[in-house]
């Protein structure tokens, strides 16, 4: 029996994996000859649970679908319910939602930076960026009472008024982060050793990528300026000014550069939100009582741009107070299977964590 190829698991208990999944790798030396993604280490059956729950009960679940960035889930859930139930949200609440989403995006990018730098052994960046993300989490705690899971964007608006002086503190934090981003440029993005690792690795290219359902930095990293905030606007994004950064190389480094620019764009959006937010206004619409809050027998599809790509929710009501079906599709499902598996073939083992991080794969949203 020829035993040239060895089989190893990269995950679920492996420092180089993002979350609770594993990639089964066939290796010739350290060169990957076949990769197969396995999920199921974290399946919680959220979609099933939601089918037996009222809207407020389901609401507490959705944020748990994606750990690094829970807010797009809340926004999606709220947008879908509002569309089905015909609820309009006030302008002030929309601004607050945009603010929360952009803060979450910024936090998620910082968390990504920790993962991406960790995957090439540059732990210093991770320590710094996790600290900076914690400052954002502090603001979230003031705003919502929760650091990671906020349960804040509820159908009809948002659940709490801004605390006193919140926008000033946010503004001060943005000033601080702006300065920090320069430090990250020096230590991470412009670091020759990171460039050496990232350039030319994990290349996604060609017109075909649009048809394969990729989204987020994968598309923007190969030159397609696709961003749902601009292309299929929700909330107030069509009234805000921001650019969609793109790169053309399609490799890990291009995706990193896209994220670097996106962090600056997030800060820009947040500054506009702070400047434009109306002083007065209701933050929550009048909603039906708990057991009377029913959805018609209709269905809809909403999608928002998360920090890692398109997050789509399909939601169907059946006339009762329960949701008949809510199906979640994050960017990771496609990225972790139909993109990652062929992308890894021919790569070295040392690039697995690097590529996986750059695609923004987050297992909890695959398994719900």
């Amino acid at each position, binding site marked *: 029996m020829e035993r040239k190829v060895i089989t190893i698991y990269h995950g679920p208990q492996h420092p180089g994996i993002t979350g609770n999944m594993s990639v089964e790798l066939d290796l010739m030396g350290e060169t990957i000859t076949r990769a197969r993604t396995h*999920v*199921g280490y974290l*399946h919680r*059956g959220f*979609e*099933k*649970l939601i*089918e*037996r729950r009222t809207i407020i009960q389901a609401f507490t679940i959705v944020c748990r679908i994606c750990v690094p960035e829970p807010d797009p889930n809340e926004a999606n859930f709220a947008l879908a319910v509002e*569309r089905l139930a015909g609820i309009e949200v006030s302008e002030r609440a929309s601004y607050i939602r945009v603010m929360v989403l952009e803060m979450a995006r910024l936090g998620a990018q910082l968390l990504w930076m920790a993962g991406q730098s960790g995957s090439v052994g540059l732990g210093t960046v991770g320590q710094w960026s996790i600290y900076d993300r914690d400052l954002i989490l502090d603001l979230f705690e003031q705003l919502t009472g929760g650091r990671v899971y906020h349960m804040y964007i509820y159908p009809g608006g948002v659940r709490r008024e801004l605390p006193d002086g919140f926008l000033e503190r946010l503004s001060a934090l943005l000033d601080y982060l702006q300065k920090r981003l320069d430090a990250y440029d020096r230590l991470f993005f412009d670091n020759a050793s990171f460039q050496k690792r990232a350039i030319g690795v994990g290349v996604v290219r060609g017109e075909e990528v*649009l*048809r*394969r*359902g990729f*989204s987020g930095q994968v598309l923007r990293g190969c030159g397609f300026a*696709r961003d*749902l905030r601009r*292309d*299929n606007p929700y909330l107030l994004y069509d009234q805000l000014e921001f650019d969609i950064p793109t790169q053309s190389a399609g490799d890990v480094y291009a995706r990193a550069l896209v994220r670097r620019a996106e962090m600056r764009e997030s800060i820009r959006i947040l500054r506009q939100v702070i400047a434009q937010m109306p002083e007065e206004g209701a933050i929550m619409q009048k909603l039906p009582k708990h057991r009377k809050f029913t959805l018609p027998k209709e*269905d*809809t*599809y909403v*999608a928002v741009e998360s920090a890692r790509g*398109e997050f*789509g929710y*399909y939601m*169907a009501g*059946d006339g009762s107070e329960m949701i*008949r*079906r809510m*199906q979640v*599709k994050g960017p990771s*499902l*496609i990225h972790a*299977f*139909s993109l990652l598996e062929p992308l890894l073939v021919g790569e070295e083992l040392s690039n697995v964590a690097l590529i996986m991080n750059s695609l923004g794969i987050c297992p909890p949203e*695959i*398994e719900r």
Partner: protein
Amino acid sequence: MMSYLEEHYELIHKTPRLFALHVTREQLLDTLHQITTHTSFDTLSQLTCTDWIEEERFELGYMLTNALRSHNLMLKCSIARDKVTMPSLALLFAQAEVMERELHEMFGIGFEGNETLYDFALEGWCDIPPMRREFDTLAYVNAHYDFREGREDNLDVKEEIKKRKAAAKSAKETPSGA
């Protein structure tokens, strides 16, 4: 691109950027082919399934989006719950492979032509597919798992709330400093 759809199909306008279209199982491949060639809806972004158990049907939803990502088209196809096979779209869209694999596991829908319908998130599952509405999560859990006893100092929540309320009440009735 809308005009082609308006002309040839009964398009349902859900929102200015979201449309829906009903097709039968037999029409599905042909319709998809027509739409992807004649309009710019050429990407599959989600494959959904809703269990309408009272109507004895599954409703599959093929979420299409265009290259600009600006509009969404939902192709809805109802199939009987007992006759559960669909043609696979794996040749048309590479990403359909894994989506179909998930639905196969969760609803037991077969996809003809998809070679990868092995375990997705569940391992060695031999009960009825869990996302079907007749699957009772609680009964399954009761049949398969033991509930772990709580800590020794574990308190019954309802009892405790009652006790606290009573204590608060009695404290109110006998104001301090009296």
